[in-house]
């Protein structure tokens, strides 16, 4: 075990190189995926068939073909057509397109889930179509789509492992090297699991933060507004009273009994799944 740790220690700079590649692929790939998802998702909700139909076809195409084949296409077929792409660009491109297509469906269904009455109120106020979307519909859809997007972005992180097929030395690639130099399969892959888990956990935390912000903006909780601080004080007092009582009874606080106190915790389920 100490030998393994020494090897790991010596290997750290290289391992970090791999982590860096994986993180770049994940972060830039995610950004690309979200941008593609927004563009295609919005297009799929359009009333114009010339926007909706092509978007739907693109989405189905990239959802229906494997990430690996898309990657090979960018890496091996594009050069045949005279376009040489950096492997990193290929990796990011394939991840963004593939997960962007999946996420586009999330964007579309979140937008259609927003109450029809919100559209109608926006029309009744004569808001232009773009303002309707930007100011009224999208902020509400955004809160709905974050949990499902979080799941997809974590899948994207896991999907980055395929880039080792196109010469990129990512985390998975480095873990394989570690295994060879330690000759300890168990050790190397456990290190791999832990690092992937930590990155996934960071993504989840970040998405939870975005979700809290988005639901707060929907008035479930708005940090720093005067009414909210008053509300918070009131809830804190009520809580203190409840705690006093429950300590004597040692009963678990099931919460949520307060009509107004719909905190972010009791809002739409954070984390996996969502309500799509």
């Amino acid at each position, binding site marked *: 075990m100490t030998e393994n740790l020494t090897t790991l220690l010596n290997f750290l700079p290289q391992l970090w190189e791999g982590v860096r590649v994986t993180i770049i692929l994940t972060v830039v790939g995610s950004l690309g995926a979200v941008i593609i998802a927004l563009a295609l998702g919005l297009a799929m909700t359009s009333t114009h068939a010339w926007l909706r139909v092509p978007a739907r076809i693109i989405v189905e195409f990239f959802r229906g073909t494997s990430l690996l084949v898309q990657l090979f296409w960018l890496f091996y077929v594009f050069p045949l057509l005279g376009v040489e792409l950096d492997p990193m660009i290929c990796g990011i491109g394939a991840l963004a397109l593939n997960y962007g297509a999946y996420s586009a469906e999330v964007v579309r269904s979140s937008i259609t889930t927003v*109450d029809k*009455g*919100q559209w*109608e*109120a*926006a*029309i*009744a*106020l*004569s*808001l*232009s179509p773009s*303002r309707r979307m930007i*100011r*009224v519909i999208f*902020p*509400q859809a955004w809160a709905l789509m974050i949990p499902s997007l979080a799941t997809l972005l974590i899948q994207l992180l896991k999907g980055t492992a395929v880039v080792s097929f196109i010469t990129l030395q990512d985390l998975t690639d480095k873990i394989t090297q570690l295994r060879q130099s330690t000759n300890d399969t168990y050790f190397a892959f456990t290190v791999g699991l832990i690092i992937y888990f930590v990155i996934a956990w960071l993504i989840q935390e970040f998405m939870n933060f975005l979700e809290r912000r988005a639901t707060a*903006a*929907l*008035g*479930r909780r*708005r940090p720093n*507004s*005067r*009414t909210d601080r008053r*509300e918070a004080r009131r809830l804190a007092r009520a809580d203190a009273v409840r705690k006093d009582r429950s300590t004597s009874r040692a009963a678990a606080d099931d919460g949520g009994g307060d009509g*107004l106190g*719909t905190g972010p915790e009791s809002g739409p389920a954070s984390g996996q799944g969502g309500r799509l």
Partner: protein
Amino acid sequence: MPLTEKTPATPATAGTPAIEFKDVEKSFGPTTVLKDLNFTVAPGERVTLIGPSGSGKTTILRLVMTLEDLTDGYIFVDGEPLTFEERDGKRVEMPKKRTREMTTRIGMVFQQFNLFPNMTVLENIIEAPVHVLGKSKAEASTEAKELLERVGLSEKADAHPTRLSGGQQQRVAIARALAMSPEILLLDEVTSALDPELVGDVLGVLRDIAETTDITMLLVTHEMQFARDVSHRVMMFDGGQVLEEGPPDQIFNNPSHERTKSFLSSVL
């Protein structure tokens, strides 16, 4: 419930109508809801639509607000075509932008309030005045606060709609519609979703608007006393047609159709 006599004087009916339905037809798929519907509403007139469920009252208001597509016929606002116009004997759709300009003259309050939950009360009210009418934020906010005062909610400017009671939300929705200074206000069963004890406040606000402004109102309500007090005219709908119409006194006390009688006895 005895109805007191308090019919307001009807505005002059001469001149260009505020709203005109001309040969309007509306179908949802194979079901025709309105057919060959013709009527006008004079500027400043307050008209209540009554009629059995499914008779098309909501559909009429939604057509005026351009929330539904017109199957056939024309709707004019201040004599100008709203969604379709006749050009060289052909019925052509108006440009969307023009229709949207026309709708700035029309406000609507919904049964379910439909406030924007991602904005504060004040932001809800100033959104359209700032971004549609091009008012400055400062000007729009000042006016919004006056409107909130008027609906009795000046304390709630910075609150979020989700924190308000139904009655308060509906009064904000009324303020939001008024902030656009509409010539026409459409009210579709605006108290139906409210607890009974909250209805009074909302009707009070509407009475105040009816008494102090000359906004044309087209309303659907089950509050017959209210309808009687504020409206100049009552239109009884049945099967997508105006069955009979007249001043509230006449319709409520002395309806000429059997169907109006049985409808009224079912709601009064």
